[in-house]
């Protein structure tokens, strides 16, 4: 583990981006991933450590243009307790309630969770289902520039994202749920939280009568990143929910993923869970 020579605590996004442009840095938000990784020897600290906590632009939740704009320093606890989130993206609030522990929720940030890019990322599944985009900021040539990426483009692999070394994750933008939206979230395990799930599923769609439109199904822990179950979505798009379509969707989701077997679950069981739980979620939606 290399030595940290300088520690910065910039007060603005501009200052932070400037520092990043000057050289490689390790970014500190809540620290809930960085600290254990450091102890395990899995992280090489850059010579500069940037503590982001003072940057006001990175905190706060706003509603603009029909979108939730969530600062990347917003903690999971703040997300859980925020009325705008509960109203406009309830699936996100639900996932936050199943995240780690109360203590970790008080410290962990949405930005950190995004940059950690875990294949089982608790917040990543609902964000993907909701069609979230991430905004990255940098100062490559002396002026602050921003770019926006859909989440599926941002996430590349386990622990890997499209964030360049000179970029900061600034906000997460989540489209507000339509009035006829339905959502469901499932995380496997015997505990409500404090669990790295064997699988997790996020379902978001618009319901007209008994048919679903704009179906988005996100799956966690069955691929190198959280992924959309596109084949399953296709079987449901515009279709009425009945036992046949629900079973078809469940089978499609099961067949389109290729999970690994690890200490948490076997590939077979993960597929079974995807099948059974997606069908269960759809049947729950059909009944309401």
């Amino acid at each position, binding site marked *: 583990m290399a030595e940290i020579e300088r520690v910065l605590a910039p007060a603005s996004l501009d200052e932070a981006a400037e520092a990043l442009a000057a050289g490689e840095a390790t970014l500190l938000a809540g620290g809930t991933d960085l600290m254990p990784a450091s102890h395990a020897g899995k992280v090489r600290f850059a010579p500069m450590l940037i503590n982001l906590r003072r940057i006001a632009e990175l905190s706060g939740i706003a509603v603009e243009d029909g979108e939730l704009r969530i600062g990347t320093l917003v903690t999971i606890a703040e997300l859980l307790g925020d009325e705008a989130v509960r109203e406009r993206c309830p699936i996100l609030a639900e996932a936050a309630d199943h995240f780690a522990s109360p203590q970790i929720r008080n410290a962990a940030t949405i930005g950190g969770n995004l940059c950690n890019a875990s294949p089982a990322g608790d917040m990543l599944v609902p964000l993907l289902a909701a069609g979230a985009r991430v905004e990255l900021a940098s100062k490559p040539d002396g002026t602050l520039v921003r770019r926006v990426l859909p989440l599926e483009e941002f996430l590349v692999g386990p622990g890997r994202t499209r964030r360049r070394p000179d970029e900061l994750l600034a906000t997460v933008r989540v489209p507000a749920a339509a009035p006829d939206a339905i959502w469901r979230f499932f995380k*496997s*395990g*015997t*505990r*409500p*939280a*404090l*669990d*790295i799930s*064997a699988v997790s599923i996020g379902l978001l769609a618009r319901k007209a009568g008994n048919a679903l439109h704009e179906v988005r199904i996100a799956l966690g822990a069955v691929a190198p990143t959280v992924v959309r179950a596109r084949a399953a979505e296709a079987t449901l798009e515009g279709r009425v929910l009945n036992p046949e379509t629900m079973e078809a969707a469940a089978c499609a989701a099961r067949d389109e993923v290729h999970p690994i077997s690890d*200490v*948490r*679950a*076997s590939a077979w*069981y993960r597929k*079974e*869970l995807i099948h*059974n*739980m997606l069908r*269960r979620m759809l049947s729950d939606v059909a009944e309401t």
Partner: protein
Amino acid sequence: MQIIARETLIGKRIAKLDAPEKASGKTRYIHDLDLPGQLYGKILRSGRVHAKILRIDTSKAKALPGVHAVITAADVPWQRPIGVARDHLPLKTDRVRSPRDEIAAVAAQSEEIAQAALRLIEVEYEDLPVLTDPLDALAPDAPLIHPEPHGADGGTEHLKPGAPVAYSGRPDNLAMTFDYEQGDVARGEADSDLVVEDTFRLHYVTHCCMGVSGIIAEFDSSGNLTMYSNTQVPFLHKREFAEILGMDPARIRIIQPPIGGGFGSKLDIYPFEPICVFLARATGRPVKLVFSREEEFLASPTRQPVILKLRSGCRRDGTLTFRAVETIHDNGAYTSWGATTPFVMMQTVSSLYRVPHCSYHTKAVYTNNPYAGSFRGYGNLQATFAVESHMDRMADALGIDPLEFRLKNAQDPGEVTPQGMQFKTCGLKECLKSAAELGDYRAKRRAYAALQAEPGRFKRGVGLASMLHVGGGAKIYPSDGCGTILKMDDFGAVTLITGASEIGQGSETVLAQLVCEELGLPLSAVRVVNNDTEITPWDVGVHASRTTFIGGNSAIGAARKARAKILDAAAKQTGLPAQALDLRAGQIVEERSGNPLLSLAKLIRSLHFSDKAELVMTTHYYEPPSHHQDRQFKGDVSAAYAWASQVVEVEVDTETGAVRLLKVSGAHDVGRVLNRLGIEGQIEGGIVMGQGYALTEELIVEQGRIRNPAFRDYKLVTAPEIPEIAVRFVETLDGEGPQGAKGVGEAPAICIAAATANAIENATGVRILALPFTPEKVYRALREER
């Protein structure tokens, strides 16, 4: 004058004496203790499953500034083997047999420097074939885990007389065997109308004490050794360390700081302890060695995994005829208490319910897997799992109600089992009926069985199981006794100096309670001293649920002697006979009327400050009236036995396999409830430990390696998962027990898994023979059945 009525503390809810300190964070556990000038010890572990050590180079580590000592086996040629079978050298010489094997150790001025030094130690290995299946290890051509030891260079120079050897090597991988017979199993089988047979698989779990293992060792200028240790058996360890270190036992002192959990994990000597002493000797400084949590998972003993084949028989009318058990115990790389769990397992197999004919055989086999130690229940969870599974199977096969089936075979007070256990008190029948009533067992079992075939995602079921365990100590050492010294000061305050250790189970509070009951004092008048071998009298240690029974009787003995002395003196002063007097609320009173006559403190002072000056100081050593087992494992090994029955209600999610524990209804024969608050705490904690064993905990061992050495993937039960509980206490008032009480520490953990297996069968029609019942395993079992 105020009349003082007789009051009793027995059965009351009494807060633990050390709770205020603990709740305010003031208690200093071993991790919180620092001695001036101490160094920090760290151990280099092999990381190899099975390999020869070709070369160890510690030169770079030694050269690191801040490092005071780096030692390997070569630096301690006088080291002696440790462990139950003396097959375990603290620092390994020529080979390693598991990834946790200790190769070298460092003492440095900080933990960081010690860790850095470990990384600088160079070791060259030559891998050897790995044995991870005990059945493979039994094959005639299997590689040997403990062969004739050779030096790293292939030589045998180090085998010269006096040089330490793990032991002289074996021709096979058999570490221990146990064989027990009662009656004639062949006849029992011939007498049976029904015989069932199953092979059960019991898995690896580990203690997960919240406080990790640690030790501080310090030599004084005369070469006397003091160890700050969390051992549960300080006096046994004093003697064993003397042997291991080649020291006079009188020059070893063990001090026990408050412990962050025991559960049986600290009943054997493990390499890190003598290694810390070696470092203290090498550096001349105190050395503190504390595990990381990962190390705690990797290097602590586990519960004994067992492959258990059980054959059970009964007559058509439901009378049990025989049980025949064969087990394979995976002994791991070295032998610890796990190998001796057959002592307890055969008690359950032979005597849980009345069985005339029984045979029990265990082979404990060396492998390169983790090794097992003692763990709350000590083999009884495993044996009960099998026995109670068959009780349900046989009952169902015969069409007899499972509660009736058990009651029919349950023993009564006064029975002596073929193994020689005398059930002077026996509340088994009452426990069965009580638990069944509390859990609405009969009605629910019928109702849920009828719903098995119905469509539906969630299925509920109830299961019943009982347990038998020692409740009055276990005479496995030459003595099962405990000593107490009691003194009273001039103000009527008592200091109780007991050999019994407090490991969080509340023994200290119970002992104070028992003394106060004899001397008519409030709890605030008693201080308990119990953690220093230089001060306290001998006690064999905290295990076998013995502390309340034996430590309690010892304390009562000393207290009664004090009481007799006081009342004799009071008789002289009051002119009334001693029998007419009583001690209440710090006063000597007239027994019948409650009239206070004399202040206790004043009486004591009058004894002290007189011509024939005397202090009130008494001692008592209590040896329970139990017997050592003979060579056939027969004998009344405990002074009392304890029973419990539990009804467990579960809900199985057939779409995920997740099993939710809804309710545990239990009835416990505890002899007598002493501290109601404390005993509830033991029961509740034991139930949840049993829940973990049944449903969530699994140490995943693959190819000799532990794959989940962290709480992230080793799942302890968390608060949202606990069930509803209902507990009833059956008070059979044991004649030998202190105020009639029997031991209870292990009981509540013992039959949860067994009852859960029966409950899952009631819910789904599927009987699962292997633990744990994790979602994936249950799901698989349900699918396979379809």
